[in-house]
C-alpha cells in the first residue's frame, strides 16, 4: 500500500532531522541565486526547524521581479524544463527544473497515485491541461512511472473524452472538479448510466481547483467512484505537493520534499493548531530553483493527529479559499467556495458563477450572476422569481449578506479554466 514505505512512514524525529538537513542544503543552494543573494540569505543560520520563521518570505511578485533567471542557482545546462504559471497579464512566473527536480517531482506524484490504489494495470486518462501548465505533465510522468496505460487527452472535447473512457476501459481519471461535473451533466442529459458505460472506472483525481466536500460527494455519487483531492502549485512543481490518502481526512503534505507552515496572512505569525491560515511552503529538494517560504495564498489548517493509513507526513485540510480570493463585505469574510456550495445544492441553476462587488453609497453590495439550468426551465416567470428568491435567502443564511442575484442565460458566463477569476471587485476604495 506504500510506494516508498521507508519515506512515507518515517518517524517524526527522523523526518524532522531530514527536513533540517535539507533546509540547510536548500539555503546553501539558494545563496547562489541572484534574488536570494540580494536578500543576504547566506547570513541566516538555521539551527533547528523553528528558525525557519526568521527567514524572509518569497512572494509571487518576487518571482516576477526576478524574471527571467533571477531565482536560478544552477548553470543553465543543468536545467531541462521550465513551467510557467497561468498569469494572464504582465510578467509570467517561471519555475525551472533540473533532471533531478523532474525525477523528484515524478516520484512524489507516483507516491500520491499509488497511495490511492493506482496500479500498473490501470488505464489512466489525463483530462488536465498539458504544456506550460503543470497539472497535465505532472500526473502524466507519475502515471507512466507507475506503469499505467496513460491517455494524454488533455482538457475539453467532451465527446472524445467519454468515447475514450468507454472504449479503453479507463479506470482512473485526472480531472478539474468543475469539468467532472460537466461530464456528469453531459451523461445525464444523454441518459447514460456511468456504472454501465464505464464499468472499470474506480477513481478520479480532482486537481487544479479548490472544491468543496459537496462537489466531491456529487462526483463520487454520480460516477459511483472514489474521488481524491490533489493539491499543488506550479511554484512547488505542480501536483504532488499534498494528496488525500484513502481515508480522505485531509491531504498528506510530503514533508521530505517540502517544509510547510500555516501563518496568519496579515501578521505572518504561525497560527495556533486548529486555526486556519495561509500555507507557506519551502522546497527541500529543488536543485535548479529553490524557493524559500513561498506564500501560496491558499488557506488551510494543519492536522497534527496521526492518520489511520500509517503515513507520518502531516496533513492539511482541503483548501478553503485563497487569501486573495477572500472578500470582505461589510466586515464579513466571504469565500467563493461558500457560494459554490449553495449553487450545487440548488436545482435550477448551473454551477458557473461570477461575483461582482460594487459600492452603493457607502455600502458594499454583491451581485451574483448565475446561469439558469436549461433542463429545469418550465417556461413561466413566476418559478424563475421563486428560484431567485430562494437563492437570495440561502445565500443570506450562509454569508450573512443579501446579494442581488442575476439569472443569466445558459453558457453566458465564461467557463473557468484552472484557478478561476470569479470575483470582479468594482468597489471604490
Amino acid at each position, binding site marked *: 500500500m506504500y510506494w516508498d514505505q521507508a519515506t512515507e512512514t518515517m518517524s517524526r524525529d527522523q523526518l524532522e532531522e531530514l527536513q533540517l538537513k535539507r533546509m540547510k542544503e536548500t539555503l546553501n543552494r539558494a545563496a547562489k541565486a541572484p534574488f536570494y543573494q540580494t536578500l543576504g540569505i547566506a547570513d541566516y543560520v538555521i539551527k533547528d526547524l523553528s528558525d525557519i520563521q526568521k527567514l524572509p518570505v518569497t512572494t509571487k511578485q518576487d518571482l516576477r521581479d526576478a524574471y527571467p533567471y533571477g531565482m536560478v542557482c544552477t548553470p543553465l545546462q543543468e536545467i531541462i524544463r521550465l513551467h510557467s504559471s497561468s498569469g494572464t497579464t504582465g510578467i509570467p512566473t517561471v519555475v525551472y527544473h533540473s533532471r533531478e527536480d523532474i525525477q523528484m517531482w515524478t516520484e512524489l506524484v507516483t507516491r500520491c497515485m499509488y497511495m490511492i490504489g493506482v496500479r500498473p494495470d490501470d488505464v489512466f486518462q489525463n483530462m488536465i491541461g498539458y504544456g506550460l501548465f503543470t497539472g497535465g505533465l505532472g500526473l502524466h510522468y507519475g502515471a507512466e512511472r507507475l506503469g499505467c496505460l496513460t491517455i494524454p487527452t488533455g482538457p475539453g472535447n467532451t465527446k472524445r473524452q467519454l468515447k475514450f473512457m468507454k472504449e479503453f476501459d479507463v479506470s482512473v481519471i485526472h480531472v478539474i472538479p468543475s469539468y467532472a461535473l460537466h461530464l456528469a451533466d453531459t451523461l445525464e442529459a444523454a441518459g447514460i448510466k456511468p456504472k454501465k458505460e464505464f464499468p472499470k472506472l474506480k477513481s478520479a483525481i480532482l486537481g487544479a481547483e479548490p472544491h468543496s466536500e459537496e462537489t466531491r460527494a456529487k462526483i463520487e455519487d454520480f460516477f459511483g467512484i472514489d474521488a481524491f483531492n490533489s493539491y499543488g502549485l506550479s511554484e512547488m512543481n505542480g501536483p504532488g505537493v499534498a494528496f488525500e490518502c484513502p481515508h480522505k481526512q485531509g491531504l498528506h503534505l510530503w514533508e521530505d520534499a517540502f517544509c510547510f507552515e500555516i501563518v496568519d496572512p496579515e501578521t505572518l505569525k504561525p497560527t495556533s493548531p486548529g486555526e486556519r491560515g495561509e500555507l507557506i511552503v519551502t522546497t527541500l529538494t529543488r536543485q535548479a530553483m529553490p524557493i524559500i517560504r513561498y506564500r501560496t495564498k491558499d488557506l488551510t489548517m494543519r492536522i497534527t493527529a496521526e492518520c489511520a493509513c500509517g503515513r507520518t507526513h502531516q496533513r492539511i485540510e482541503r483548501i478553503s479559499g485563497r487569501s486573495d480570493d477572500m472578500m470582505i463585505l461589510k466586515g464579513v469574510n466571504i469565500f467563493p467556495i461558500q457560494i459554490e456550495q449553495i449553487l450545487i445544492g440548488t436545482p435550477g441553476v448551473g454551477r458557473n458563477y461570477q461575483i461582482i462587488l460594487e459600492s452603493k453609497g457607502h455600502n458594499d453590495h454583491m451581485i451574483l450572476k448565475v446561469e439558469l439550468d436549461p433542463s429545469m*426551465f418550465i417556461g413561466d416567470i413566476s418559478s424563475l422569481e421563486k428560484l431567485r428568491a430562494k437563492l437570495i435567502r440561502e445565500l443570506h443564511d450562509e454569508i450573512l449578506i443579501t446579494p442581488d442575484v442575476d*439569472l443569466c*442565460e445558459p453558457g*453566458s458566463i465564461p467557463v473557468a479554466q484552472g484557478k478561476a477569476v470569479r470575483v470582479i471587485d468594482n468597489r471604490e476604495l
Partner: protein
Amino acid sequence: MAHQISLFVENKPGKLDAVLASIIGKKIDIKAFMIASAGKFGVIKLLVDEPFKAREMLKDAGHAVALEEVVVVEIRDMPQGIKDITDLFASKGINIENAYGFSVQEKPKSLFIIETKEPSNIKEIVTAKGFKVLSDAQIYAL
C-alpha cells in the same frame, strides 16, 4: 391544440436579437411574440409555424427553452372580444396563468392566447360558448 415556445432571456440590449437569430432565417416563421419581463430577465413567448422543430433548434443553440400547450381563441374585435372571454372565465372561476392577444394583419381577426394548467378544460368551456380554438396549423394558415 396549439403550442407556445417560452424562452429565457436576459434583459440586455442585443440579447433578444441574438436569441431570435438562432431561428430566424432557418425556415421557422414567427407568428406572434410577447415578452414577459421581471427586472433583469424575462421570458419570450413565441408562436411559430413549427414549434417542435424550433424548440430543438433553440435547445441546440444552448438556450433555456420550454414548450407548452396553450389555448388560442379567435376573436372578432380586440377589446370587446377579450372582455367576452375574461367575463366567461370569471363566471366559471377559472384562473389564467398568463394571457396575451394579437391582431392578424390585413384581416379583421384577433387571437387571444391563454396559458393555463388545464388547457383541455378551457378548450371545452370556450368552444361551448361558440368561440373557435385554433391548432398550430390553423394559426399559421391565418
